[in-house]
Each structure stands twice: as structure tokens, then as C-alpha cells.
């Protein structure tokens, strides 16, 4: 009996894996196609988890993503890839089985950073929010009406959760080391607007401090947080919204450039071997992939956004199927959206590293505005609060490398005032950061 050909294996069955697999089929690939997923579910959509699923408007299993092409795929769900052997072109799964591959698309994504065990991480009542099961478990705990909720981290997930929980009428405190929420992603100038929303919602916002440790009661359930400023907060439900680390542990020993910050790719989405040469048969896309973004000085960046998962996976699939020498560079303008406190927030570009910011439409006081970020006289990013229809015009300007501020002497706004964007200095900044991750 001739063994079945190994075909293409997509490791990671979330948004990037699904859209990558679809792109392979649309691109004419007719051979065996296998999708490996750590969770026992078909690909589902994450953005509703921290909003409508927490709010109880959608069941966690309602978020399953539509499959937009006939995949004719073999699904290997419920067991993660645990190791990769490039010499034999095989990968091993958690259940002990071995899969052969001719080509690999890595879309393993990222994992929520857990609260460290040595400072109370093992206590009951401490949640993270990334997967479908996380959202379902947290929702169940919210239905039991916790006395006092503490959210650690004022990034997108922390703020969306705070907004939801206030809508549910639950008492919420949000602790963040920076002066404003979303400060790392959007800067304090824009994040200050969300600080106002947080306070107006009735949440307690504790900026400029950190949780040092959690303490439990006799039953091992979280009871209070000890803060860096010496104070304590009573709490019986904690959401640790500390960002994510890239799911690359299974690539240890595979001889690839991979660490907790991602797997490094060249501009064509090919994964780099340890010696820096691109592997012709291994591609990566989505949250897990960091690649040199031309628009931002070829810095190595992993973009953990919904739109990048789709576009990069499709691009990687295209390059994987293309003949030798026809691998094209991936060009992408990062973008995300969030809804919280009744406001629709959308971003294009990467604001990090901006030296100035200017409100070009509306005002922060009205919580309806569009702000552009500049660096060295060039527009590099734009954010809208309930002004989404103007954003595409600024996206074009950013892609074209337009000057900052992008519009001068407009009749309705002759003078554009620029301000400091208010990005916090990195707490543990390495001397020469080799790679970055976009996570807000």
C-alpha cells in the first residue's frame, strides 16, 4: 500500500489557520490539507468573547466562524502540536500521534499571560480571557454576582471587560501601572478619554500602581489584592488582562527563530531557520508571526489583530503555493477596532513611537473625534472614536507617508494643535529590542 501523501499541515485552528486553509484551496491546492487545533472546537471568533459573551447576549459557541470555502480538510482538534522535527518533516501532537507534512503553515497564535503562581496565580476566582472556554467560565462566575471584581491591566481586553461588567451592574476596580488606560497602545492623550468613560461608568480606576500579589481565603479562593503602593483591595473575582505571549513553545528545539515574542519570518512570511535563512516549506501568519514591516522601518513586529490574521494567512498561502522565486513581500497596514463604554474605537497604523498627536476632527471632550499620530513629521497612525467613516482617508495618507499633521489650513479647522501622545516608558526595556509585539 502506498502511504497517503502528507500534504499541507496548518498548525493552529483559529482565524488565521482557517482563512489560510481557505486561501490554499482558493489558490488551487487540491492535495491533502490538515488543520491541527489545540482546542476541541472548529475556528471561532474571539472579539465577541470579551463583549457580547461576557454580557450574556451570545452563547460562547455562537462565535464559530463561517467556513467560506469548501475546505475538504482533515481536522485534528483537541490536541496541540508539541514538537516539530524538520529533518523528518513531522510534527508530534499532544496525544502522541505523529503527522507528516510537505509544507507547514504555522498559525498557533498567542496565549493569555497567566497571573504568576508564586504570587497567588493558583487561587480560585482568578480568570484570564482569551479562548471560548475562558469566556464561558468567566460568564458563569459573573452570573453568580461577585461582590467585587478586580481587573488587572487596562489594555483593550481589560477595558472591554470593565465596560461589560459595569453594564451588568457589577462593582469593578481596574488597576493599571500607567496614568491612563490603553496608554501603551494609544498613548495617554487618547487613553485619558477612556479614563473618563471608566469613571463615568462607575468603575474605580486605580492608575499608576500594580498588583503585587493575591491572597486567598481558607478555601483557596481569591480574597484580596496587595498593591505596590501598600494598599489592599478586597476582591472575590479577578480578571488578569496582562496581554499575551506567542504560542511558540512547541517549536523549541526545531532550529527556528522563535521565542515568546513570536516566530520570525522574512517579508514573504517564510519562517527563518536559526541561521537566518528562510525555510522554503514553512510559513507563518497571524498573532504568532513577526515580520519586518516596511512601512515602519522594517522593524520586526507581530501584529495581534483580527485583520492581520486574515490578510497575512492568505498572503502566506499564496506564497506557499507560488513557484520558486515568486514569493512576494507582505505589505500590511495594521488596524483594529474595539467597542467599549458605548464608543466605537478604530485604529489604523502603529502609534507606538509617535512623537506627537493631533485631533483633526471633533474633540476629546465630546468623545467623538479622530486623532492622527506623527513621528518625525510623518503621519504614522490614526485613531477614531465614533468617527469611523473618516478613517479610510487617513489610512491612505499613512500608507503614502503623508506629512504630519496631514491637513493644514483647512477652512473649518485652520490650526491643528499638536500634543505629546503620552506613551509610557517601557518598564523593563531591553537595551536593544530585537523584536516587538503589538498588543493593546
Amino acid at each position, binding site marked *: 500500500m502506498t502511504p497517503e501523501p502528507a500534504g499541507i499541515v496548518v498548525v493552529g485552528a483559529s482565524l488565521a489557520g482557517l482563512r489560510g486553509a481557505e486561501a490554499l484551496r482558493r489558490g488551487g491546492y487540491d492535495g491533502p490539507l490538515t488543520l491541527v487545533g489545540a482546542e476541541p472546537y472548529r475556528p471561532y471568533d474571539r472579539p465577541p468573547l470579551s463583549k457580547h459573551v461576557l454580557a450574556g447576549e451570545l452563547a460562547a459557541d*455562537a462565535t*464559530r466562524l463561517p467556513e467560506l470555502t469548501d475546505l475538504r480538510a482533515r481536522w485534528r482538534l483537541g490536541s496541540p502540536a508539541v514538537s516539530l522535527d524538520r529533518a523528518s518533516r513531522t510534527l508530534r501532537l499532544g496525544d502522541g500521534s505523529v503527522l507528516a507534512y510537505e509544507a507547514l503553515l504555522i498559525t498557533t497564535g498567542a496565549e493569555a499571560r497567566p497571573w504568576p503562581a508564586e504570587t497567588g496565580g493558583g487561587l480560585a476566582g482568578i480568570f484570564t480571557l482569551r479562548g471560548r472556554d475562558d469566556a464561558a467560565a468567566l460568564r458563569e462566575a459573573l452570573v453568580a454576582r461577585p461582590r467585587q471584581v478586580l481587573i488587572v491591566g487596562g489594555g483593550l481586553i481589560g477595558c472591554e471587560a470593565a465596560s461589560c461588567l459595569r453594564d451588568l451592574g457589577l462593582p469593578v476596580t481596574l488597576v493599571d501601572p500607567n496614568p491612563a488606560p490603553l496608554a501603551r497602545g494609544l498613548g495617554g492623550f487618547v487613553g485619558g478619554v477612556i479614563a473618563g468613560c471608566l469613571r463615568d461608568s462607575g468603575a474605580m480606576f486605580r492608575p499608576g500602581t500594580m498588583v503585587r500579589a493575591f491572597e486567598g481565603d481558607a478555601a483557596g479562593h481569591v480574597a484580596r489584592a496587595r498593591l505596590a503602593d501598600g494598599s489592599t483591595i478586597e476582591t472575590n473575582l479577578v480578571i488578569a488582562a496582562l496581554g499575551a505571549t506567542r504560542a511558540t513553545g512547541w517549536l523549541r528545539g526545531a532550529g527556528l527563530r522563535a521565542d515568546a515574542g513570536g516566530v520570525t519570518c522574512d517579508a514573504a512570511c517564510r519562517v527563518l531557520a536559526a541561521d537566518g535563512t528562510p525555510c522554503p516549506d514553512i510559513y507563518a501568519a497571524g498573532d504568532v508571526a513577526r515580520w519586518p514591516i516596511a512601512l515602519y522601518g522594517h522593524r520586526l513586529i507581530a501584529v495581534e489583530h483580527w485583520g492581520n490574521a486574515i490578510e497575512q494567512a492568505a498572503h502566506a498561502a499564496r506564497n506557499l503555493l507560488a513557484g520558486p522565486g515568486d514569493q512576494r513581500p507582505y505589505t500590511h497596514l495594521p488596524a483594529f477596532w474595539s467597542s467599549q463604554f458605548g464608543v466605537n474605537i478604530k485604529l489604523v497604523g502603529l502609534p507606538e513611537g509617535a512623537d506627537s498627536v493631533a485631533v483633526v476632527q471633533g474633540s476629546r471632550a465630546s468623545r467623538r473625534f479622530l486623532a492622527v499620530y506623527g513621528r518625525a513629521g510623518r503621519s504614522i497612525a490614526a485613531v477614531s472614536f465614533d468617527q469611523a467613516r473618516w478613517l479610510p482617508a487617513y489610512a491612505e495618507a499613512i500608507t503614502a507617508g503623508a506629512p504630519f499633521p496631514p491637513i493644514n489650513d483647512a477652512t473649518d479647522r485652520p490650526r491643528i494643535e499638536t500634543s505629546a501622545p503620552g506613551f509610557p516608558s517601557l518598564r523593563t526595556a531591553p537595551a536593544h529590542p530585537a523584536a516587538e509585539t503589538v498588543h493593546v
Partner: protein
Amino acid sequence: MKPASGAGVLRVVVDLNRCQGYAQCCYAAPDAFAIRGHEILFYDPAPPAERRGAIERALQACPVRAISLQAGPDDGDAP
């Protein structure tokens, strides 16, 4: 909240990077799409299969083509 799996359910996703809040989907399929506040789109990603006609009209009505709908049946979590 309702059960959301099985053959009686459609699969819908909206690209909210693309969505500009024109709300045409809300007119075409008011049971599945709603605008909240100025421009936040809330939608049901798993509407019942009998609403396929309305969902397809919403998909066609979207000026920025942000809505995707699974063509075939939902086959559960089959391997």
C-alpha cells in the same frame, strides 16, 4: 441567549475593520443586526437557518461588503 450550534444555524461574521456603520444590514435583517450608539454594530453570528433570505439581503446591501456568510451547512465539530 439561545443554543447556537447544529444544522439549524447559519454562520455569519462581519469585518468590523471594514464596517462604517451605514446600517443597511439593520434594515435588511433587523433581527440579526443592530447599531448601538453612533456606530457600534452588534450582530448575531449564529442566526436561525430560516433567516437565510434576510441575511443574504443584508450581505448584498452592505456598501462596504463587510458581511460573510457560510454557504454550506454547519457540520458541527466533525473531524
